[in-house]
């Protein structure tokens, strides 16, 4: 490590900020939960998950927690994704590939509009709890 100038310090801070911020969960109100059961993974949930993380990073959205969960029991429509956002209904999206994932970020998270064609259900109450 060489001595830093002010610019170096600022650059390093920006670079690291994203990474470290993810560890702080306070103030993060939006959740995206990706079903990563065997069925989900087989249907491409890993790519979906990566697309969410990548898209959120690109847009510098930091108040969203991207989580994984097991099979949501909706195997016919995998990969399934559940989105919780305050002020919006809790939604389960089905058949979410990486393109749709990016669309969900754009519409649901940013513009507060549902991605209608992929809304499959509201989560049943026992999942919500």
């Amino acid at each position: 490590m060489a001595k830093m100038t002010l610019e170096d310090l600022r650059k390093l801070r920006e670079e690291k900020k994203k990474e470290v911020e993810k560890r702080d969960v306070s103030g993060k109100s939006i959740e995206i939960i990706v079903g990563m059961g065997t069925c989900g993974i087989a249907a491409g949930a890993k790519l979906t998950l990566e697309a969410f993380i990548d898209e959120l990073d690109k847009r510098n959205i930091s108040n969203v927690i991207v989580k994984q969960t097991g099979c949501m029991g909706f195997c016919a429509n995998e990969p399934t994704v559940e989105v919780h956002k305050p002020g919006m209904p809790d939604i389960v999206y089905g058949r979410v590939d990486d393109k749709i994932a990016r669309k969900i970020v754009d519409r649901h998270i940013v513009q507060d509009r549902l991605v209608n064609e992929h809304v499959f259900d509201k989560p049943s109450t026992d999942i919500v709890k």
Partner: protein
Amino acid sequence: MAIKNYILVCGGTGCESSKSGEIFENLRKEVTAQGLDQDVQVVKTGCFGFCEQGPIVKILPEDAFYVQVKPSDTQWIVAEHIIKGRPVTELLYDAAKDKGRVRIKDVQFYQKQYRIVLRNCGIIDPRKIEEYIGRDGYSALEKVLFTMKPDDVIEELKKSGLRGRGGAGFPTWQKWSFSKVVDDPVKYVICNADEGDPGAYMDRSVLEGDPHSVLEAMTIAGYTVGAHQGFIYIRAEYPLAISNLEKAISDSREMGLLGKDILGSGFDFDIEIRLGAGAFVCGEETALMASIEGERGMPRPRPPFPAVKGLWGQPTVINNVETYANIPIIMLKGGDWYGSIGTATSKGTKVFALTGKINNSGLIEVPMGTTLREIIFDIGGGIRNNKKFKAAQTGGPSGGVITSDYLDTPIDYESLGKLGSIMGSGGLIVMDEDDCMVDIAKFYLGFTVDESCGKCAPCRIGGKQMLDLIEKIAKGQGENEDIDKLQRIGHAMKRASLCGLGQSAPNPVVSTLKYFADEYKEHIDQKKCRAGKCKDLLSFSIIPEKCVGCTLCARVCPVNAITGEKRLPHLINSEICIKCGECYTSCKFSAILRS
């Protein structure tokens, strides 16, 4: 590839001693073995504060809070949580588990806390400077060096209302401005990390978990008062804190955040560590400076105050670890923001080390003005084994007790002073009905008598005399006039001792006398100790009607003082008995009488 899960393992001394190091290594190996090292990052962080339930492992983004994790659990955690995405319920913290929740937010221990000083503890890896920088680290320094004048820094501190967290509560801005106005080319900045109160470990945890925040604040102090050299005086008993500090200092030097021409600003500042040998008196600022100079650690009269004439006779700013840890964030968010937290005279937050007969021992940070009831019952989870709360002791050997009548007092410097205690550095020891107040006073006084440097007579002789009197009372030989004597000597020590150690040494006695005079009376008049702590006042005997002759007591007795045939009532020979109480606690038939 993006990281999907973070596994944070507590690397504080508490968790480290219950094998968190091994857990960390195992988790890393397991993650690599599963081919997940691109998806999962394992980080060793500073103290989470929830030491009661350590070792602690936290997994993000689910925020699952695993407690009492064993090295052998690691495979399980990776297989279930990381690969299958379902929390390992068995290892989740109980209170959260009952409600079917896994998140740290739901753990009541954390709900009433407000973390400023501990903002990075449990989040960053303290040995990686990049992570501190990623948490806005060194941006306060940047702001101060390039956009603020020394007077602006002092103005901001004044607005914040920050007061010394070492115990006395002197306004920090005043201390700094006293040093600043002295015209002298050589000045020093010292960080007092000689944490010595029994049961207190706030400073250790900050230095272990977030060493850079202290370095950054000391550099800001140097810029403000015009000093170019800093010293951190830390006791050698804190090996992990020292090692993390050394790493932090060498990283900062390498990156040009310490040393010559910091960030190209033209300002020079460097920091060195000085190790103390663990003498309590060296926490007193003048004794601490004598120790740095290589002299015997003894206080000297003040004034002159260190701010004007300190280390090697030069103006010296000396602050406690926790005080420094507040400063970067005050500079960043502004004094007004900080001043909006807390009470009228005490601003910001305070870190307390909760110990004693409490369910959740650990390190907590609450806004000033939080009541003792909230700290003990909401955050601390109440008294162990559903016993009755008797008193809380704050300020260690220099403080006093607070009884249940005052549980709802908002805690700040003034309100604690009014109750005859002090804020102190933040030790908070909870006592229940099994604690004897005479015994507590004896313990603390014994500590200060041991640690007195012996330079001034009031402390050296007064302390010893008070201790003799207390011991006499605890042995059941006390007389009524002893109480009066204790108060008179205590008064003299307070007025005449040279430094804070002697001035505050009588506090535990005076305060227990004030609130628990009846217990002292009982010891003197009836030769009785209701808590059963003062051994000389106890005698153990067996109630023949209740004894079934199971022989358990005879077996546990370490000195073979109990005899008797099987299935026949036993007998205790009081001449051999050492009153250890083993028989009393082990008897299943309540046949042992303690009187």
